[in-house]
C-alpha cells in the first residue's frame, strides 16, 4: 500500500505541476476578443501610450545622458546631448564618496532582509492558508494594519528600543546592519504574507494532503509541494522585499553610522556645500539602480503571475 503510494508520488507531483502551469497559461491567454479593434481604439492607444512613454522615458534619458557628460555640461544650461561623451563620472564616483562600501552595505542589508522576510512569510502564510486556529483572523488583520502606521510614529520609539536592547544585552542593533535588517524585513512582511496566503489558497489542498498521505510531515509538505508550486508568488514577494529594503531612506538615515551607511543615504555625499557633481550623481544613481531595475524587469513576469494568482483574486 505505502509502496504504491510512493511510486505514485512523482507522477502526482508532475500532474500537479502541469495543472499549475496550465492555469498560468490560461491566465496569460485571456484578453479581449480576437477580432481587430476599430480605428478609434487603435489611435487612442497610439496617442495615450506615446505620451506615457515620453513621460516615463525623459527622466531616464536625462539620467543616462547626463551621466556621460563632462562637468561643464551639467554646471551650465541643460543640453540634450553631451558636448563630448565621457565615462569619467563612472570612474570618479568611487572616489568622491566611499560608494563601494555603501554598495556592500546595501547588498548585505537588502539581501539578508529579503531572505529572512521571504522565509518568515512562507511559514506564516502556510499556517494561515492551511490551518484553522484561534486568532487567525486577528493575526492577518493586525499584520495588514501595520501597513497603515506612519513610519514617523515608530521611528523614534524603535530607535529607543534598539538602544535599550543594546545597553541591556550588548547586542548592537542601533547603528549596525543587523538592526536595519530586522527593521526592513518587517516592512515587507505584511504584504508578503498577504500575497502568499492568496497564492497558497489557490494551490489545491489535495496536493499537500497527498504528500501527507505519503508520509511527509507538515514541513515536508510545505517544502516539497507548496513551495515548488508557489514559485512565481515567492519570486514576486522576494522582488518586493528586496526593492523595499534597497530604497528605504528614513530609517537608513537615522539608524546607520559611517561604516554601515547604505546607498539611500550615501548618495547625498555628492552634494557638497558649494557644488553638486551632477554628472557623478547621475552616474551613481544609474549604477545603484541597475541591479534592482534589471532584476525587476527580468522577473516582472513572475510578479504579474504571482499577483494574478494571489493578491488580486
Amino acid at each position, binding site marked *: 500500500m505505502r509502496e504504491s503510494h510512493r511510486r505514485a508520488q512523482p507522477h502526482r507531483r508532475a500532474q500537479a505541476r502541469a495543472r499549475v502551469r496550465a492555469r498560468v497559461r490560461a*491566465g496569460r491567454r*485571456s*484578453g*479581449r*476578443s480576437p*477580432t481587430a479593434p476599430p480605428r478609434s*481604439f487603435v489611435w487612442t492607444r497610439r496617442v*495615450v501610450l506615446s505620451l*506615457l*512613454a515620453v513621460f*516615463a*522615458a525623459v*527622466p*531616464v534619458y*536625462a*539620467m543616462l545622458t547626463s551621466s556621460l557628460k563632462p562637468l561643464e555640461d551639467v554646471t551650465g544650461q541643460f543640453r540634450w546631448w553631451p558636448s563630448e561623451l565621457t565615462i569619467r563620472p563612472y570612474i570618479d564616483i568611487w572616489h568622491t564618496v566611499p560608494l563601494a562600501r555603501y554598495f556592500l552595505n546595501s547588498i548585505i542589508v537588502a539581501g539578508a532582509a529579503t531572505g529572512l522576510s521571504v522565509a*518568515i512569510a512562507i511559514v*506564516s502564510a*502556510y*499556517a*494561515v492558508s*492551511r490551518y*484553522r*486556529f484561534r486568532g*487567525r483572523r486577528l493575526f492577518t488583520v*493586525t499584520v495588514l494594519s*501595520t501597513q*497603515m*502606521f*506612519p*513610519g*514617523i*510614529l*515608530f521611528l*523614534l*520609539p*524603535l530607535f529607543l*528600543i534598539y538602544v535599550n536592547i543594546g545597553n541591556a544585552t550588548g547586542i548592537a542593533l542601533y547603528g549596525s546592519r543587523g538592526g536595519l535588517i*530586522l527593521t526592513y524585513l518587517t516592512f515587507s*512582511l505584511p504584504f508578503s504574507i498577504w500575497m502568499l496566503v492568496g497564492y497558497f489558497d489557490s494551490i489545491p489542498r489535495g496536493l499537500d*494532503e497527498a504528500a*501527507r498521505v505519503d508520509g511527509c510531515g*507538515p514541513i515536508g509538505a510545505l517544502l516539497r509541494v507548496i513551495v515548488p508550486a508557489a514559485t512565481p508568488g515567492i519570486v514576486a514577494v522576494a522582488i518586493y522585499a528586496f*526593492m523595499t529594503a534597497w*530604497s528605504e*531612506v*528614513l530609517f537608513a538615515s537615522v539608524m546607520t553610522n559611517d561604516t554601515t551607511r547604505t*546607498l*539611500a543615504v550615501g*548618495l547625498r555625499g555628492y552634494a557638497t556645500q558649494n557644488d553638486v557633481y*551632477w554628472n557623478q550623481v*547621475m552616474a551613481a544613481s544609474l549604477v*545603484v539602480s541597475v541591479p534592482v*531595475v534589471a532584476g525587476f524587469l527580468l522577473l*516582472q513576469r513572475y*510578479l*504579474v503571475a504571482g*499577483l*494574478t494568482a494571489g493578491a*488580486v483574486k
Partner: protein
Amino acid sequence: MITAVRPDRRGRSGAGGGAPAAPGGAPGPGGRRRRTLDRLRRGGLPYLFLLPALVMELLVHIVPMLVGIAMSFKELTRFFISDWSGAPWAGLDNYRFVVDVNRPVGAALLQSFGITCAFTVLAVGLCWLLGAAAAILMQDPFRGRGGLRALFLTPYALPVYASVIIWAFMFQHDNGLVNHVLHDQLGLTDQPSFWLIGDNSFAALVIVSVWRTWPFAFLILMAGLQTIPRELYEASAIDGAGVWRQIRHITMPSLLPVNQVLVLVLFLWTFNDFNVPYVLFGRSAPSAGDLISVHIYQASFVTWNFGTGSAMSVLLLAFLLVVTGLYLPLTSRTRRRRGHDARVS
C-alpha cells in the same frame, strides 16, 4: 478532503477541517493519551509557524507604536530625551497644543494636513487614471508591447531616492531640463520658474510622486485584467459589442474588487510618504509642499519635542484608521450592488 472524515472534538476550534490530519495515526493501545498529546502538538503547530512573524511584528511595529502612543502623553522635551521614561506625564496637553489652530504650531499642522489631503487625492487619482489607461490599452497584444511594458515599469523599479534625485536635477532653476523645455525651447513662461521653492513645489511633488507610483497601479491592474475570463469578451463580441462597450461593461466592473484594494493601498502609501518630499526638498520643505510626514519629522527634530511630535503622529494614525474604517464597508457595499447590477444587465 481527507480531513473531513474526522469528526472530533476539535470542531469548536473553528470552521473548516482543522489541521490536515495524518491518516494512519489510528489510536493504538493507550491511544487516548497519545491523542491528547498529538492534538496539543498539532493545535500548537500553526502558532509555532507564526512565531517568527509575530516576534518581528511585535519588535518593530506593535511595541514601538505603543511606546509612541505613550510618548504622546508625556512632556518629552530635550531635557528628558536620554531618559524618556522619567519624563513627567502631560495628560492631553500635547494634543491640546497641536490642535490649537489659533497658535502657530496648530495652524501649521492644519495647513500641512490640508496640503497632504490635496496632494494625496491628486496623486492617487492620477496614478489610478494613468495605470488604468495603460493597462486597458495594453490588454491585447500588439507589436512592441513587451518593450513598452518594461519602459513603463522602470520608474517603479528605480530606487525612490534615485528617481527623486533625477527629478531634482531636472527641476533646477537655472540648468534644469524642465525650465529648458518650458522656457528656452517652447517659450511658455516669461521667466524660468522655481520648482523646488514657492508654490510650484506642490506641482513638482505631484509630478514626481505620480511618475514613480503610477506603474504600480499599472502592474496591479494588468494582473487584475488577466483574471477576467476570455469567454465574457467572446460572448459580448458575438452579441455585437464593440471594444469601448466591452471596456465599459465588462472590464471596468470586473476590476472593481482590484480597484478597491489598489486605491486604499495607494492612499495609505501616498499619505504617509516621507521619501519623496524628504529627498526632493531636503530638511526644509517649502510651505506649499509641506507634507505631513516631513512636517512631523521636522517638528520633532527641530524643536526636540518628541511629545508633541508623537501626538501629531498618533492623530495622523487615527485619521488613517477612520478613513480606512469608513472606506472598506462603504466600497464593499457599492461593490456588491454594482456587481449585482452587472450580472443582471
